[in-house]
């Protein structure tokens, strides 16, 4: 018997003590945080960071970003992945933009491998915030995977002039590699959001 989906509502401004308590200093454990891969996980260790910008170009200080990704060999830590789980890799992170002076989110992780023969390496992103009534999905692709990106069937469905909004910029720093990925909710650079 089909049942109507429970409608979405905004996460609101005060999610921190429920969803990201450790990051914001509340006395409550967190189920996930900025560490997506443990320091001993296989693969190239990278930092992913960026800001969420509203239609006026202002950084959003009360957004929450979740990411879900495959490990360095392209496996997801989930029973639906037929290749079996990688116990040392979780692949999920959750961070609010309210504890950084520049309103950045950040994750420490490993660069994901390709999940199948066709798709380029990518990280799945969900965006929540006050003023967003239904969460939106996007993907982080990597600018230094040009060849794989050119063959990616999802990127191929995105109008060519908007594909850049899905590319993280590689910044090599003395401490390691950072990928920068800003999320533009609106405006000429509006990020591509997917209907999943």
């Amino acid at each position, binding site marked *: 018997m089909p049942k109507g989906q429970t409608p979405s509502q905004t996460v609101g401004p005060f999610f921190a003590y429920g969803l990201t308590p450790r990051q914001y200093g509340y006395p409550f454990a967190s189920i996930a945080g900025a560490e997506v891969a443990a320091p001993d996980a296989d693969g190239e260790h990278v930092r992913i960071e960026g800001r969420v910008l509203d239609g006026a170009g202002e950084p959003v200080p009360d957004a929450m970003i979740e990411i879900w990704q*495959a490990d360095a060999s392209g496996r997801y830590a989930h029973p639906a992945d037929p290749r079996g789980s990688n116990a040392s890799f979780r692949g999920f992170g959750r961070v609010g933009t309210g504890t950084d002076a520049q309103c950045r989110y950040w994750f420490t992780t490993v660069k994901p491998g390709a999940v199948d023969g066709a798709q380029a390496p990518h990280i799945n992103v969900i965006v929540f915030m006050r003023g967003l009534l239904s969460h939106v999905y996007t993907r982080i692709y990597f600018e230094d995977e040009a060849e794989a990106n050119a063959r990616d069937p999802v990127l191929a469905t995105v109008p060519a002039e908007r594909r850049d909004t899905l590319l993280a910029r590689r910044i090599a720093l003395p401490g390691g590699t950072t990928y920068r990925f800003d999320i533009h909710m609106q405006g000429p650079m509006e990020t591509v959001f997917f209907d999943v």
Partner: protein
Amino acid sequence: MPYTARDWDSHPPLVSPDYKSTVARGPTRPLVPLPQGLSELTGPVFGHDSIGPLDHDLTRNGVRNGEPLGERIVVTGRVLDDRGRPIPSTLVEIWQCNSAGRYNHAADQHDAPLDPNFLGGGRCITDDAGQYRFYTIKPAAYPWGNHHNAWRPAHIHLSLFGNSMASRLVTQFYFPGDPLLPLDPIFNSVPAGARERLIADFSIDVTEPGFALGYVFDIVLRGPDATPMEA
């Protein structure tokens, strides 16, 4: 197996001008359809080991020197997919303001008292029948800046994953008979005919004698688009 589509007749639009913050924050270009693959049909798995023993009991998990003030309630219900199948072993997270309408958050400037014995956050994992259960304090209405004399109806925020990223849901549920509901632009952002699903039912059967009133709120997430028999 692909999941059912997000039913946009059940969910609010991304820009809903009566809720003013959506105007500069909701995407304005059409969403790009994404065929579901492993990236969408997997998601984080949370086991019972990710839950503390008091995480489901908000009347006790923030206690410092006494009991929180307010009306104790039980909130329970089933998590189902949209074919009516229960979703066992899935994480349910909640957060809410206290019985005075104040959130335990530095950005909440509402001039109502904090309760030193109430944190307002909780979580649990559904059982084999998809059932979840929380003990908490009934939240109160509070004013907000959306428009003149704007008040949010009492509500509890919920966050769920289901079995994949495609079934992710963050929502709020409300209490029956609240006179603020027809005035609330966030509740009203949901299409008519679907918004009533966000109102919990009072239940005398769930009510615990001498202890707490009971409310039932079932949650329906997207699920696999066919029964295993059809696959």
